[in-house]
């Protein structure tokens, strides 16, 4: 992932917790696949398993690889299944003015960019999408800038640490990185000031 341009799916709700992203009863799988079908399950389907017409994922008007969400997205449970569900559904970026920490980490570990923008930019993005569902967001990971297509003069800078940026761009693997530090870890263990009774 270096540059993405996509239309957006707006979910203008604050404090969306991971129990809503993927309810607990769908956490029983022992693999990482197939969670997209149950993304936002209880907002998406009624008790008779019929799609709820006014929920945004059920509206043909809104499509795209970018989910735009209200403040404090991904709070609550640490379940990585939430990130798997978002990725499996086809989103590559989630935009919000604020993310819960564990969700943010889980998203990055699964190649999904949690894009933090200002409250003002988020409000403008929601308004533009509402006025014109074909509104696109463009994101350049290399320069760490995001902008609404046609509004290049108002680019949002976003933060991402060098390591995670490298991982997203190259599809780099955390575990390969940690395994490459084997000697340092062994040295740490040998020199611990205090050995716990583990």
């Amino acid at each position, binding site marked *: 992932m270096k540059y993405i341009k996509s239309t957006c799916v707006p979910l203008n709700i604050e404090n969306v917790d991971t129990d809503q992203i993927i309810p607990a009863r769908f956490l029983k799988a022992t693999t990482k696949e197939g969670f997209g079908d149950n993304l936002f399950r209880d907002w998406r389907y009624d008790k008779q398993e019929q799609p709820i017409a006014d929920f945004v994922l059920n509206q043909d008007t809104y499509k795209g690889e970018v989910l735009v969400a209200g403040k404090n997205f991904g709070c609550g449970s640490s379940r990585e299944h939430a990130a798997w569900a978002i990725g499996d559904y086809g989103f590559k970026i989630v935009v919000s003015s604020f993310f819960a920490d564990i969700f943010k980490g889980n998203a990055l570990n699964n190649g999904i960019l949690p894009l933090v923008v200002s409250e003002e930019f988020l409000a403008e993005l929601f308004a533009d999408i509402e006025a014109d569902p074909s509104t696109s967001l463009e994101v350049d990971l290399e320069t760490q800038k995001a902008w609404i297509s046609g509004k290049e003069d108002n680019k949002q800078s976003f933060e991402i640490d060098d390591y995670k940026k490298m991982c997203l761009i190259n599809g780099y693997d955390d575990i390969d990185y940690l395994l490459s530090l084997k000697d340092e870890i062994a040295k740490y263990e040998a020199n611990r000031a205090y050995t716990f009774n*583990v």
Partner: protein
Amino acid sequence: MSNNKPRTLFEKVWDSHVVQRKENYPDVLYIDTHFIHEVTSPQAFNGLRGRGIQLARVDQTWGTADHNVPTKDQHLPIKEALSRHQVETLTKNCDEFGVKLYGLGHPFQGIVHVIGPELGVTQPGKTIVCGDSHTSTHGAFGSIAFGIGTSQVEQVMSSQCTLQNKPKAMRIVVDGELQEGVSAKDIVLYIISKLSASGGTGYFIEFAGSAIRNLSMEGRMTVCNMSIEMGARGGIIAPDQTTFDYLEGREFSPKGEEWEKSVAYWSSLPTDEGATFDAEFVYNAADIAPMVTYGTNPGMGVGVDSSVPTPESESDKKALEYMGLEEGESLIGKPIDYVFIGSCTNARIEDLRAVAEFVKGKKKADGVNVWIVPGSKQVEKQAIAEGLDKVYAEAGFELREPGCSACLGMNEDKVPAGLYCISTSNRNFEGRQGPGARTLLASPLTAAAAAVNGHIVDIRKELTTA
């Protein structure tokens, strides 16, 4: 890093576990204790298999089954096929990789955040992780404990380290005396109502002040348990004599000379005079009323004698609609269908004792279902040894077997759609206790009083009239 600079408890523990620090990279943090359970581990074990590697430190890894377990007839196979499969997968994985497992039927089985402390595995100065956000509970002992995702579970399994950005430091001081009937759960619900469900995001919180120091270990665990509900990575409380007294003699606590050395080391951990925090809040314990939540996140809580506040946003309106509550409505007198006393927040022996002491000689109201779910087999055993089971039976309360139970809808214990449950658990999210369930969070005492009255009451009045 100067050695003379005053440091916080959090900094001391964190910095002593950094294997590698590089600018603009996450720290490589060494993990002393890794707890695993059935929900967030299977994909990580698959990852190890795919790489053909073993666990880096199997001796520092502990497994239990808790989220999916039934709380009735645990001697029988789990009825629900997917739950059974997930628990069996954990057993197979632990066998194959040599991880010790306190699964169903084991005398140490229970909720991961209850068994760690009661076995003495949780100790001051340690780094502790688990694929569960309420790992923050273990911070009550002066350890750095936090929840991780499954990718990080795999990181720890394969290297005993995880990549972490160091959080900012916050201190929350609660000074003074609590009113009678106000407990640790009320303290933490009060703090979250002040700071909001995102007020602690990006921070690790040290809880301090006389009201915190006066809490038992159980109470401290309740406070740290819910630090995640204000968005914090975790909560931490300085170890002191209360901590040492709790740990001494437990199954995996250090013994003999090792114990003496440990206590000396643990005593060096509290925050130095003059250490600085990135944010600090001070509250007066006497201001805290028994708390109840009215909305769909734990920040939406008020003193029980207050009314439902006016919604400030569309999200707030949606929450009240889901809860079937109106602005200005009094919470006292609100009828309750279910009472759940349990979960990693409030299922320790002290919680069960407090409930039994209150209900002794009383009966539950007609039409209310009351579930008491111990946090572990050891808590269950202790409760029965003390005769609490008889008190519950006389009151019409149902004592079940240990597990996460009605905290979240992964097992058989669910609250039916539209019904109200006053719950000692940590989350009132939409559908958390089952699709459409309406959850009001409260302390064990407030929950027990609701069970007896059939509706929400102010526990302070119940205690003075008793």
